[in-house]
């Protein structure tokens, strides 16, 4: 659940419950207030009636509100308050009344005084007071709900923006984390912590990168020394056994060195150290690679069929384009059979390099993984490099096999 949703939900729930509690409490308070008011009214009326009886001996009677009559002494009954239903003649229906009756002695005579108040009036009054009040409250709550929601949104906007920034942060991009500063203290604290962390990460990452690169380069020098010495040893007229061992050592060292170079290349592509992009016509690169690899094609008697329906253009560093096409073509030669074919098809939105060859156990998913190979003499890095080049240049590479092994490259949508 989003923070804002949660806050808003909580806010709504608490507002509703507060509203209900206030309404109920308001009802009771109003009731008590009105009750008191009624008591006072009744006392005043009673007092006025008693005064009237005392001064003039008149018995005021206003049906249904006031009733007075003389009673016998034995009927003296004290004060009672009851609720009764009476027919209201003006409205023609029975209505609830609050009936207050008191029997008392005035100037040695006994009287019964009944005062009635319509409860309908009172309920009407309560409603008349409560309804607008509740309506006002609801309106106030709605307004405050929406204002606070809007306020929250604006307060959290910077947070949201920074969150997106952190989400899109990639160490390999070599871009510093740029968080928008906020005037809210807590957010500012969070920002500064994250900024510091980002800086540290970037620093450590680049130093690690540098270290890897330097280490990889430094490896080449001892390999060189070993290779040159072995090469000289090879000239010293040894027997077949010794020479075989030396050549095997030389070849292993060369493999080590070229593995190292491939890994450096992969790292460099990952680190985006090739940045001189320009619009490259892939067809041209394929043609020049084809010429370059012609002797190998001839030695394996592989036929290349190149079909250009439209030119495929990509925005890519020419060195990377060269490596990409080179790796794909070498792959197509390497895993081909004698007298095989390589079919190349270039369209405006994709190009395909397909080769004949034996079956392999690889799927589209794992064929591009590093060190995936089915020949002992390869490293399984060529296609990993090709994929990495595609990934960093808004291209998409896929592999499929039916009777041919096909690599398709498209622009990423």
């Amino acid at each position, binding site marked *: 659940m989003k923070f804002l949703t949660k806050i808003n939900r909580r806010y709504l729930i608490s507002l509703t419950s507060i509203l209900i509690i206030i309404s109920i409490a308001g009802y009771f308070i109003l009731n008590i207030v009105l009750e008191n008011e009624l008591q006072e009214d009744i006392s005043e009326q009673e007092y006025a009636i008693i005064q009237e009886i005392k001064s003039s001996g008149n018995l005021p009677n206003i049906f249904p509100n006031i009733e007075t009559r003389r009673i016998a002494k034995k009927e003296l009954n004290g004060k009672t308050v009851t609720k009764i239903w009476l027919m209201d003649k003006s409205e023609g229906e029975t209505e609830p009344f609050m009936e207050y009756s008191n029997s008392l002695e005035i100037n040695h005579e006994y009287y019964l005084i009944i005062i009635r108040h319509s409860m309908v009036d009172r309920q009407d009054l309560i409603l008349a007071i409560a309804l607008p009040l509740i309506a006002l409250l609801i309106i106030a709550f709605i307004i405050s709900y929406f204002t606070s929601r809007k306020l929250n949104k604006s307060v959290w906007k910077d947070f949201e923006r920074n969150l997106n920034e952190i989400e899109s942060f990639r160490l390999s991009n070599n871009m510093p984390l740029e968080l928008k500063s906020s005037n809210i203290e807590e957010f500012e604290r969070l920002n500064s912590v994250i900024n510091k962390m980002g800086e540290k990460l970037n620093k450590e990452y680049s130093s690690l990168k540098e270290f890897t690169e330097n280490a990889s380069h430094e490896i080449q020098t001892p390999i*060189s*020394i070993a290779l040159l010495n072995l*090469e000289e040893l090879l000239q010293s007229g040894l027997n077949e056994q010794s020479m075989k061992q030396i050549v095997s050592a030389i070849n292993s060292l060369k493999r080590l060195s070229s593995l190292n*170079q491939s890994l450096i290349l992969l790292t460099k592509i990952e680190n985006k150290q090739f940045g001189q992009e320009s619009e490259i016509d892939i067809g041209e690169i394929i043609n020049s690679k084809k010429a370059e690899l012609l*002797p*190998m094609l001839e030695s394996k008697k592989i036929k290349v069929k190149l079909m250009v329906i439209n030119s495929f253009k990509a925005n890519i560093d020419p060195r990377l384009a060269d490596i990409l096409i080179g790796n794909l073509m070498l792959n197509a030669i390497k895993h081909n059979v004698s007298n095989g074919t390589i079919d190349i098809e270039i369209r405006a939105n994709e190009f395909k390099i397909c080769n004949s060859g034996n079956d392999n156990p690889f799927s589209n998913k794992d064929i591009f993984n590093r060190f995936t190979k089915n020949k002992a003499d390869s490293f399984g890095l060529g296609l990993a490099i090709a994929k990495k080049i595609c990934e960093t240049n808004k291209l998409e590479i896929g592999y499929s096999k039916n009777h041919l092994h096909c690599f398709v490259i498209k622009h990423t949508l």
Partner: protein
Amino acid sequence: MKVLIIEDEIELLIVISNYLTKEKYVCVLAENFAKAREKLSIYEYDIILLDIGLPDGNGLKLIDTIKKYNHYAGLIIISAKNSLDDKISGLDKGADDYMTKPFQLSELNSRIRALLRRRQLDSSNTLTFNELTIDALAKTLIINGQEIKLTKKEYDMILYFVINKNRVLTKEAIAEHLWDDNIDLADSYDFIYTHLNNIRRKIKNAGGTDYITTIYGMGYKFTDQ
């Protein structure tokens, strides 16, 4: 021919200079930036091998000094970095060639000879081995006064053999010389064999001797011994 080798790895320096001395070059050694500067200002050289990864200063900066004192020297840069940027800036500054570690001595010799030919420091434009003569200007092979038609790769191959005569050359070294980086293909060594057979046939047809000896199936040696 006088060669100045600037390389901070003493071991490497020794192997290279031993080899080049055997190949009749006069070698002068410098193992750091300061020594290289000093030696550059005192003598003149025909060829300078420069490792640009010197510990006490980027070797690329030495190129200016080289251009100042040894304008005529051919300059080959050696670097542990396969970095294209280094390569480009090195060549831009006036280096003649660029070699990446690890390299082979036979390859180094070929590059030096090619450079000497380009700079026309070689006394003649021809290389002779008994009845075989290579005309480096016309890029042809002549046997007993008769010109042999060779493809470009065949010519490159025979030139490589003659320059590195009496040396065991592995198939891998030959392949690397002919195809640069593209040769991590084990099964393509077959085409070296094909090319080699073509050369042998052409030389024999012209009445020449086949000097190419196979060494235990691992490599070849161009020799008359």
